[in-house]
């Protein structure tokens, strides 16, 4: 169900994004940092779904606030002549990896549980 939503949303977004007008290169750095922030939020959302502590308010507010905050930080960095967006990228990508680990562990655990169950069933059948 969740994955269906992800695939459908991505496809729709891709189609619309391809047909959208080109924005100036000057703003592309803001867009890039927003993409990273959104990606981080989506990964966080998926991991929270798997951990069963998904909260819509937290998810949506995190999604938009992260994106906007990262853009503002990039702007500030440009004004201060400091590459603040690098810090944002480091944080987001680090969190992305953490979330990815959670997702991976969940499925690996699920898979290994299945194998264990199968083996137990087999053993039960054999003992019978």
């Amino acid at each position: 169900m969740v994955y269906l939503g992800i695939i459908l949303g991505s496809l729709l977004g891709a189609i619309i994004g391809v047909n959208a007008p080109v924005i100036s290169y000057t703003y592309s750095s803001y867009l890039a940092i927003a993409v990273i922030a959104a990606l981080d939020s989506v990964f966080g959302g998926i991991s929270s779904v798997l951990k069963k502590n998904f909260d819509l308010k937290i998810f949506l507010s995190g999604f938009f606030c992260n994106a906007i905050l990262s853009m503002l930080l990039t702007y500030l960095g440009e004004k201060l002549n400091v590459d603040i967006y690098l810090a944002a990228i480091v944080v987001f990508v680090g969190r992305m990896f953490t979330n990815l680990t959670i997702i991976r562990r969940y499925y690996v655990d699920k898979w290994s549980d299945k194998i264990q169950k199968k083996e137990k069933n087999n053993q039960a059948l054999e003992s019978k």
Partner: protein
Amino acid sequence: MVIRKKGKIVMSISIGVSCFVLAMVMFMQFKVVNQTDITSIENMRESELRAELSNWKEKYEDVNARNEEVTKTLQEYRDKEKSDNETSKLLQKELEQINVELGKTDVEGEGITITLKETQNNDTAITADDLLVIVNALKLAGAEAISINEERIINISDIVEINNSFVKINGQRILSPYVIKAIGPQVYLESSLLGSGGYVDELKSYGYEVSIEKGSRININKYEDEIKSKYMQ
């Protein structure tokens, strides 16, 4: 159970929507990065623009220096050409002057015209000697150009009597009446011939018809033959 399912649907939709936004922004960004032409100045970053600007400035300075150099050289050439031109103009003028003096051009100026004519009651014709005397007298009076019957008298002109019957000037036979044109100071020319003991009086006493006319615009033709020099160096 129902509530859980509803929550799951909302969850899926919200994640789907966020994925939608994410994918849209991502593809827009891909497009921007793809389509960005590094040469188009509008899309360049400030640092890149600075580098480019300094680069162009350097080039501009180089070209400017070269331009100055070339302009200088050009100016030199122009000056040279000008001086050459002046020299050639001077030479041209000199050449013209020499040609005028040599008698190789038609000339015009104030002077006198003398007409000599034999009459019925003369027993002798006008001789080359008579013409020579007149020409010499005119030369003495400061004539600058002389012609007899349109034959220009130049420095090597000959005025000779052939067989005591006809007169040759510049190798051409000429006939009476003799029209002598001279350009020079009118008064001197006239007085050299008319004054007491002047040659005109003498000719008149022989019975020849002599008339002298003053003119402010006397035309004298150029010397028709070629002036050759073979032995002169």
